[in-house]
């Protein structure tokens, strides 16, 4: 197991290096530079600024400096925000995105498993049809539409109640998180529901379920002890990519709900070609995803004994 984790960590580092390099190249390939956005600057000031940020050096050397700084955990200073270190931006705003993302992931996973199991139990009866209809909608409608519908819904509800039960936008309390997290998790939840449904149906007709019935195990116990754990395996497999989907989806939802997460800075930084912020956030997200996928793989081993990698057993 340690060997497996070590291997995965190594390949993770390579992945992150690749992400960093690709972003670096892409950024420098885009016309313009971070200083071009500002109002007309005198050439000598501009030269000073370039020297200050190291932009006057050859690209390859810039790349070397960037890598070396990154290895020291230093992402540099923002070009567009006064005196803000990229590390500070991440430190302040990532937790907001993380809380939102984790909540969305929990909603998506729990919802996907529950709805998927329900549709399988009620196969071809009305609860199945209704849920599967909603799933198609949730998969195909983009999240910003749901985000706005969510806001409208909150407004209508508050108006009807006569007081403000849930805030329409902003950040701070659990009430602020609820609807954005739901909106953010919706697409993934729908996808997981479909996956869970087919997986449950497959498990239901498995031989070992018949064995359990032949042993006199009650239907409820069969469902929880035998079906669920086996049916959940494919769902766990796609959790890694789901985390990626939710994280990137977070940018849009954060924008609509005015949530001070990292996503907003990321989008802004790209628009303004804020090199350091783009690099810092991209590499950070990359590392985060690599870590989460590794975590999912380890978790998978716990649920499915057949996958416990690298373990010698007699």
């Amino acid at each position, binding site marked *: 197991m340690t060997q497996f984790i070590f291997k995965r960590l190594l390949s993770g580092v390579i992945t992150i290096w690749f992400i960093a390099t690709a972003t670096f190249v892409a950024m420098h390939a885009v016309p313009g530079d971070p200083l071009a956005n500002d109002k007309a600057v005198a050439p000598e000031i501009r030269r000073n600024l370039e020297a200050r940020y190291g932009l006057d050096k050859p690209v390859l050397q810039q790349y070397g400096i960037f890598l070396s700084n990154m290895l020291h955990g230093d992402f540099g200073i923002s070009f567009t925000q006064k005196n803000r270190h990229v590390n500070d931006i991440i430190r302040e705003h990532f937790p907001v995105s993380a809380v939102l993302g984790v909540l969305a992931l929990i909603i998506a996973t729990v919802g996907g498993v529950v709805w998927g199991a329900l549709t399988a139990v009620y196969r071809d009866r009305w609860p199945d049809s209704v849920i599967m209809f909603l799933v198609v909608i949730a998969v195909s409608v983009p999240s910003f539409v749901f985000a706005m519908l969510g806001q409208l819904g909150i407004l209508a509800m508050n108006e009807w109640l006569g007081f403000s039960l849930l805030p329409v936008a902003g950040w701070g309390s659990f009430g602020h998180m609820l609807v954005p997290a739901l909106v953010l998790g919706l697409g993934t939840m729908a996808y997981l529901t479909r996956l869970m449904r087919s997986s449950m149906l497959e498990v239901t007709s498995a031989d*070992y379920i018949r*064995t359990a019935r032949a042993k*006199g*195990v009650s239907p409820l116990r069969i469902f929880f002890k035998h079906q669920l*754990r086996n049916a959940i395996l494919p769902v766990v497999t796609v959790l890694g990519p789901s985390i990626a989907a939710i994280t990137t989806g977070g940018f849009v939802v954060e924008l609509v709900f005015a949530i001070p997460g990292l996503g907003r800075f990321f989008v802004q930084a790209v628009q303004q070609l804020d090199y350091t912020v783009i690099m810092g956030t991209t590499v950070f997200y990359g590392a985060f995803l690599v870590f989460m996928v590794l975590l999912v793989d380890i978790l998978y081993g716990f649920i499915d004994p057949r996958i416990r990698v690298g373990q010698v057993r007699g």
Partner: protein
Amino acid sequence: MNEEQGETMTAANTPRERAQLEPGLPALEVNNLQVEFAAQGGRVQAVRGVSLSVQSGETLGIVGESGCGKSVTMMSMLGLIPMPPGRIVGGSAKLNGRELLGLSVAQLNKIRGVDIGMVFQDPMSALNPTMRIGEQIAETLMIHRGMSQREALQRAVALLDRTKIPEARQRARQYPFEFSGGMLQRAMIAMSLACSPSVLVADEPTTALDVTIQNQVLELMREIQREEGMAIVLITHDLGVVARMADQVAVMYAGQIVERGTVEDIFYRSAHPYTLGLKAAMPDAHVHVNEKLTAIPGSPPDLFAPPEGCGYCSRCDYAMQVCDKHLPDLMAVSRGHVSRCWLQHPEAGVEVEGLYQPAAKGSPSC
């Protein structure tokens, strides 16, 4: 739960002791069982009036080719076929004198795994891949005997030990994928015998195993039967297995029993052309590699629309005019030996070589 436990534990622990309480009562008795499956535009009559019985300590072999209804007969009475589309149309199935048909799932769950145990064909897929072997055996004991997990796990180890799994304690903590096929089938047997059932139904228990392992598994079943005295219903298409294991044999074809008798009756006094065909299809050690194996030509009838007459008629070398239109009853050939064939009718007047026909005049008795 506790009350029931006390009853079964004090009165009789093994099937043998239980059988002695009511001598002569068959452990399992099936009467005229009919099962059908709803299919697009009609129904498939998978089991068409099967009757059989098995006494404690005895082994009944049910033989027949795939799709003849041998598994469905056993599964349906235990509620193990999907219903719908499956449906039990009629008949009765009594376990120790108690009717099984029409019981609710909750009632059946007090019988399945307790009074009747099942062993399935492919042990690789018949055990839950994400549950430890020990836990799977313990589950039965926890549910039916009200044991604590600790107690049940200990008993599971003892059961694995009994089915000759080496290092049972360590093995109980392993998962199915860490077992070989033969070991899994032993574990499966351990599981089905956890509550000392009166009847063990083994559905093709050795089909998925290689030949040397087959032997060991069969031997194990016999040994436990000798000790505990349970009845075994052995479903198989392997006549060799039947010859070794069975006391009584029922040959099934197209959802019906076509011949039933003792193992000697079936093998030495075969009274149905289908049984003859099966015997001829059995490979033996003298067949040369280049020789083709003998097969019964044709295929079984479509049970979507079962034929009016004998289902074997179109494949039978000895078919008469009557066979096509009229279904024969099971006719007594000798004591306890019946055959569903017009050739056994006193008025048939046809003698077939190799077929045991006491009805035909002057036929040799063996």
